[in-house]
């Protein structure tokens, strides 16, 4: 399996880097790679329950934020965790973080739940639009942004950029909804989001 091969060829430098980011980080930036791999390779229940205890309340909060009532948020969050348990064997730590995985699964479950079908619907549009939640293709190791670095960049966003990012991710607001709510021209909403995203990718220089 590709996963095993990759783990076995992890360089000592890489291993040391992973260890140090594990030790040095605050709880919210803890590296969950080790537990994810333990679940994927050994069906390790203790590792899974550590992931569960950390992410379950966060997924519930996220799902409530984008519009699920409390009971449905709990149901979808449980389902997201169970999918992680089922599919962890496909997890590739060099390609995405555990949190990215769970974000993708929870978002898709939410969209599935509330999407209204076009009148002449055939097939399942969600499957078509958000496929490959476990193994997104075309991803290289070096593209995977370090979470510590990404966290620093999020903290360094201007307050308006941070606000629009949160309205997008935590409230699933469209550009037009943001524009109407903040009484901000549509073009300005887009240019803020565009610049915020470039900044998060480090393309506009690093925060001082």
């Amino acid at each position, binding site marked *: 399996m590709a996963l095993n091969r990759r783990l076995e060829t992890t360089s000592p430098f890489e291993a040391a880097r992973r260890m140090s980011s594990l030790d040095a980080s605050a709880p919210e930036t803890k590296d969950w790679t080790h537990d994810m791999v333990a679940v994927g390779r050994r069906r390790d229940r203790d590792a899974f329950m550590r992931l569960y205890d950390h992410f379950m309340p*966060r997924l519930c909060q996220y799902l409530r934020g984008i519009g699920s009532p409390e009971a449905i948020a709990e149901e979808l969050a449980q389902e997201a965790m169970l999918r992680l348990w089922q599919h962890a064997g496909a997890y590739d730590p060099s390609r995405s973080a555990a949190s990215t995985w769970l974000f993708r699964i929870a978002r898709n479950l939410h969209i599935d739940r509330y999407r209204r079908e076009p009148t002449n619907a055939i097939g399942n549009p969600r499957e078509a639009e958000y496929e490959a939640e476990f193994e997104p293709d075309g991803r290289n190791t070096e593209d995977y942004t370090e979470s510590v670095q990404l966290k620093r960049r999020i903290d360094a966003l201007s307050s308006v950029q941070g606000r629009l990012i949160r309205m997008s991710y935590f409230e699933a607001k469209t550009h037009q909804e943001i524009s109407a709510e903040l009484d901000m021209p549509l073009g300005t909403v887009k240019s803020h989001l565009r610049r915020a995203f470039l900044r998060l990718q480090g393309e506009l220089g690093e925060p001082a």
Partner: protein
Amino acid sequence: MTPRHHLDPATVLSHAAGALSQELSAVVATHLEGCATCREAVARAEDVGGLLINQQHPQPLPDARAQALRAAMLDRLESTPAAASRAPEPRSKDPDRIPAPLQPYFGASFRALKWRWMGPGMHFIRRTGPSGGNMLMLRIGPGKRLPVHSHGGTEITQILSGAYDDALGHFGPGDVADLDSETEHQPVTRAGAPCICVSALDAPLRFQGWLARRLQPMYGI
């Protein structure tokens, strides 16, 4: 073919956040099928989502509720086997096949489409999506000049076959034109073959000029 015109980063971010209208998302997904560059950008935007979730300081659930959910999860682990890894389905190379994300709106076959006449050499099919946005499939004959128009909201257009040129450049199969409301453009289709493209629109188009005003009611948008 490797696309040369990509999605606006603001569109990528909102798509990853699950914050685009369903109609815009369908056209975005059509572009992503053929564009590794934009798929990678979506994956980076999903990293942001993951990190934001992780950074939250959540309200803890009431203790009894949390314990009940936890016990239920432990039970379900027992009865839930690991999923078999499945290879992604190979993408169809059949030129008649409409991309999967568009099928809920237009069906599966280009040949089966029932085009409506809109002007000499120009045909269209319009669908109103579930969130009220419009999906427009256009078939414009070779060498045609479309009316100058700008957009009230957002228009995202994916080229499915053929090609056109406008002030923004040359657009061929796989390219996407992700336009701002300020953009005013006049596409001219290439000679040789008709250009088939699909647009999702958040808000009505604003046409200028007499031909355009005549076309407006036919678009019905």
